[in-house]
């Protein structure tokens, strides 16, 4: 048995059968426990410090009890109905939860190395830890993109694994940095603290996580490594944009304007970026499709063709990514409307940001219909996926840069 098959079989045994099922239910129990804490906990939900409520002894008790109960239920139910162990949902979702748990753990460890509170001032944020983790993330993600591209030309297993490995590390660095930043915002002052989804810089990091994670899950399941060159290039471009944002002062932690002080922000914004991130993956698949199409048309380099997934597969992958993104984006837009109803007095105001969200949604809606109806085939749809992402980019960047409106707290500089 080679090391790699050992690794794979260990991995698949962890994510199948009873172990996966129990873990899955434990995570659900954990989430329910924390929801219970928010609703019925001793001091109730505290908008300003929910992070610490979760990480306190009280959070441990609520969440831990939930997790234990969850895994207990899984044990009993699966003993009664062994066929349940054949189910796919648990096995497919637990790696995501494991990843999140790992990020939280990493962030908690990193938090121990923060400078003491008396050395932290709002005016000078340079001694905080998260920026250096972000720097590490930047390097990892860019390195990963370069390695994925190298893999296209030199498809050695070693290079491919290096690319995948650094992409994973980049995702974990990103998650750790964001969680740490959340914690850091509270170090200045309890009043300043807020979830790290309040400005373009933070949200960009979140988008790297989503894009890379959606892609990596495809890579693992469908063996689509050549697509990484395209998806991770998009991420790398985002990294450079993030570096620029930081250089103009967008990287600083700032208190929230009153309009953003709402729990809606914590769900609306991340949900939107689940959509955007998936659309980025669809764009990557579309680009890979177009490149492969060109290569095939030229009848050329079989070596490179060998690493590419087939046209059929790339087409399916783009669709799959949109199938993840479209419901998420729909939900995000609805949540945005609900928030607008609460904060501005109307669920729809034809504000430029809202309208562009609608435009993005219509473009992908039309894409989905074009797929189902006859007459539209692979290449046109691949172009559509790429163009759709350009519209998406305009929605989350262009609108902030060029158009004004009620969403102007997302303004650049």
């Amino acid at each position, binding site marked *: 048995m080679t090391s790699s098959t050992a690794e794979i079989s260990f991995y698949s045994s962890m994510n199948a059968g009873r172990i996966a099922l129990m873990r899955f239910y434990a995570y659900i129990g954990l989430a329910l426990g924390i929801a219970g804490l928010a609703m019925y906990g001793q001091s109730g939900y505290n908008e300003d410090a929910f992070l610490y409520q979760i990480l306190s002894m009280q959070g441990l008790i609520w969440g831990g009890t939930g997790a234990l109960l969850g895994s207990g239920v899984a044990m009993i139910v699966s003993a009664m109905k062994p066929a349940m162990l054949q189910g796919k949902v648990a096995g497919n979702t637990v790696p995501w939860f494991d990843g999140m748990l790992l990020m939280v753990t990493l962030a908690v460890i990193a938090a121990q190395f923060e400078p003491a509170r008396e050395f932290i001032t709002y005016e000078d944020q340079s001694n905080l830890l998260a920026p250096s983790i972000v720097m590490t993330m930047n390097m990892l993600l860019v390195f990963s993109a370069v390695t994925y591209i190298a893999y296209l030309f030199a498809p050695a297993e070693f290079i491919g694994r290096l690319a995948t490995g650094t992409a994973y590390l980049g995702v974990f660095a990103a998650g750790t940095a964001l969680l740490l930043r959340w914690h850091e915002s509270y170090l200045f002052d309890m009043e300043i603290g807020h979830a790290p989804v309040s400005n373009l810089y933070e949200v960009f990091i979140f988008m790297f996580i989503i894009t890379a994670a959606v892609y990596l899950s495809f890579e693992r399941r469908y063996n689509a490594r050549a697509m990484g060159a395209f998806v991770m290039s998009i991420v790398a471009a985002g990294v450079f944009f993030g570096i620029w944002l930081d250089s103009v002062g967008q990287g600083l932690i700032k*208190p929230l304007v*009153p309009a953003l002080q709402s729990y809606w922000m914590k769900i609306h914004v991340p949900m939107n970026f689940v959509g955007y991130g998936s659309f980025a993956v669809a764009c990557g698949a579309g680009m890979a499709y177009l490149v492969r199409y060109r290569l095939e048309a030229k009848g050329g380099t079989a070596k490179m063709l060998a690493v590419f997934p087939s046209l059929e597969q790339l087409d399916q992958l783009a669709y799959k990514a949109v199938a993840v993104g479209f419901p998420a984006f729909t939900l995000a837009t609805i949540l945005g409307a609900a928030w607008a109803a609460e904060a501005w007095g109307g669920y729809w105001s034809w504000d430029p940001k809202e309208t562009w969200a609608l435009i993005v949604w219509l473009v992908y809606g039309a894409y989905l219909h074009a797929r189902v109806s006859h007459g539209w085939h692979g290449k046109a749809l691949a172009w559509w996926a790429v163009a759709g992402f350009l519209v998406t980019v305009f929605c989350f960047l262009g609108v902030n840069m060029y158009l*004004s409106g009620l969403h102007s707290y997302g303004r650049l500089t």
Partner: protein
Amino acid sequence: MANMPPMQSFPELLKKLWQRLGSMSLAIILLMVLAIASVIGTVLLQNQNQTDYLQQFGPLWYWVFRSLGLFDMYHTWWFITLLGFLMVSLSSCLWRNVPKFTKEMRARKGTISARALARMKLQEQWPLTSDISIDSLQETFRSRLYGWEFKQTEENGVHYVRADKGRFQKVGYISVHSAMLIILIGGWMSVEFGFRGNMAVPEGAKGHTIEFLKGTDTATLDMPFEVRCNSFVIDFFPTGAPKEFRSNLTIIDDGKEVLTTDIIVNEPLLYKDVYIYQASFGDGGSDITFKLYNMDGTAETRTAKTSVYKSWTDEKTDITLKVTDFKPYNVENMANPGEPVNFKDLGPSVIYEIRGPGLKPAKIKAYMNPFFDIKGKNMGSWLQVSLTGDAADFQSVGLGLDLTNPQEWKLFHAFMSHLSTTDVTQEKTKRMRSAFKMAMQDVFGDERPENFQEMAVRTMEAMQTLPQIPWPYIPMLDDYTHVYYTGLQLAKDPGMNVVWVGSGILVIGLCIMFYMPHRKLWLVIRPENDGITVVFAGLTNRNHMAFKQTFNDLFTQFDQDFKPKI
């Protein structure tokens, strides 16, 4: 003429049109046209001042755009018609597909024809010996499939097990498309039966009329109750950025006070189906007292009382001060570029326009407090002056003197008069020093204040700057009684809940559509002469890749299961 299609009757034509409206290609076109149309409204700023548009586009394009309604695009007849088309198209495709899909979902044929079976890409078969019991094969098949529905049939000696998962996937299609209809209907109800407008209520005052834009004009609407603003408060972060805007409101219905409560951004008040939101704030007409410092060397001052949004005219000089705004706080970053931020409150300020015969009109922001530099040194009173009337052109003007200290004003004049009587043949610094000494004596006698050296510096500074002031006097902010107005938004929206219901159905429908594909598996067991043939086949309508993997995994398992155990 023989090729001419037969004449169609009107109902037939209508039916054709109805079907055309429900076609997928029309849906794609409609969605894209709506997307493109929506772009226009975001690029062209909506509902601005007409004269601004005229200036921006010139008369020709202004009239073209205006006649297309592009300045209030989302309410034009053609945009609404597009939405109407979408509704008709949705209805038509539901009309056509719902019966088809419900029939499909109900009818579940247990058998499958050899032809249909042959067409399936995913299929495997095993030739088995006849000593394997058909029942056990079927049992194995079922036990491997968790969460599937089974239907077992036998026809002409052939045994079929059909397994279905996601049999109700088409419910997703129906939900999504009817949800869109519901949302559009809700939106129409909001527009037709709801309202939304703004109301500015100064602290202590009452309001009951909202203003809103109707097309490109402003319209008003009376509410069935009155709102009194008892107070408006802003809380700040330690950094000086605003943290919370809070209004304390009392609702007065039929002359009676029915309820008093606070509202903040994100936490509105609901009364009689009308939501009341904290939307903005501003000055509610604060009382302002100016102190006018005469520039004629007489050391005289006067006071003038007025309030924000009012003008005060001086009968003597015909000078008018029009007060446009007052700010009780002015939090600014005092750090130089590149240094860590350092927020400080510069104190109250008033903004006014000064006009008068022979004077260039100017916009002035006068601060009540003198300016202290980063080290805390008093740099004297100051103004910001804009000669264009544009806030972007404000230039800081330091007056030198700290006018909040009346003795400094006296000192300056004493100094000027002593300076004019000193011996001109003396050296300049010497002259100034002796003049200042005498002025100090005049104002303070023998008890010199501790900071007299700073006063000396400021007096010298004032000697340079004050003569350059073009107005007969400098109006400075002397006193104020601050009043805010709270900007409320009032809205009633009877379509909102309909929209929420539609939205819920939409999301659930999308999840069903995308994540519960209808998957079918068949196990066909056909006894042959010298054994049995088992065919395993599968079909899905979404996510073929994942299904292929599932199918192959199952095949590997069955391959083991069905092998005769040795």
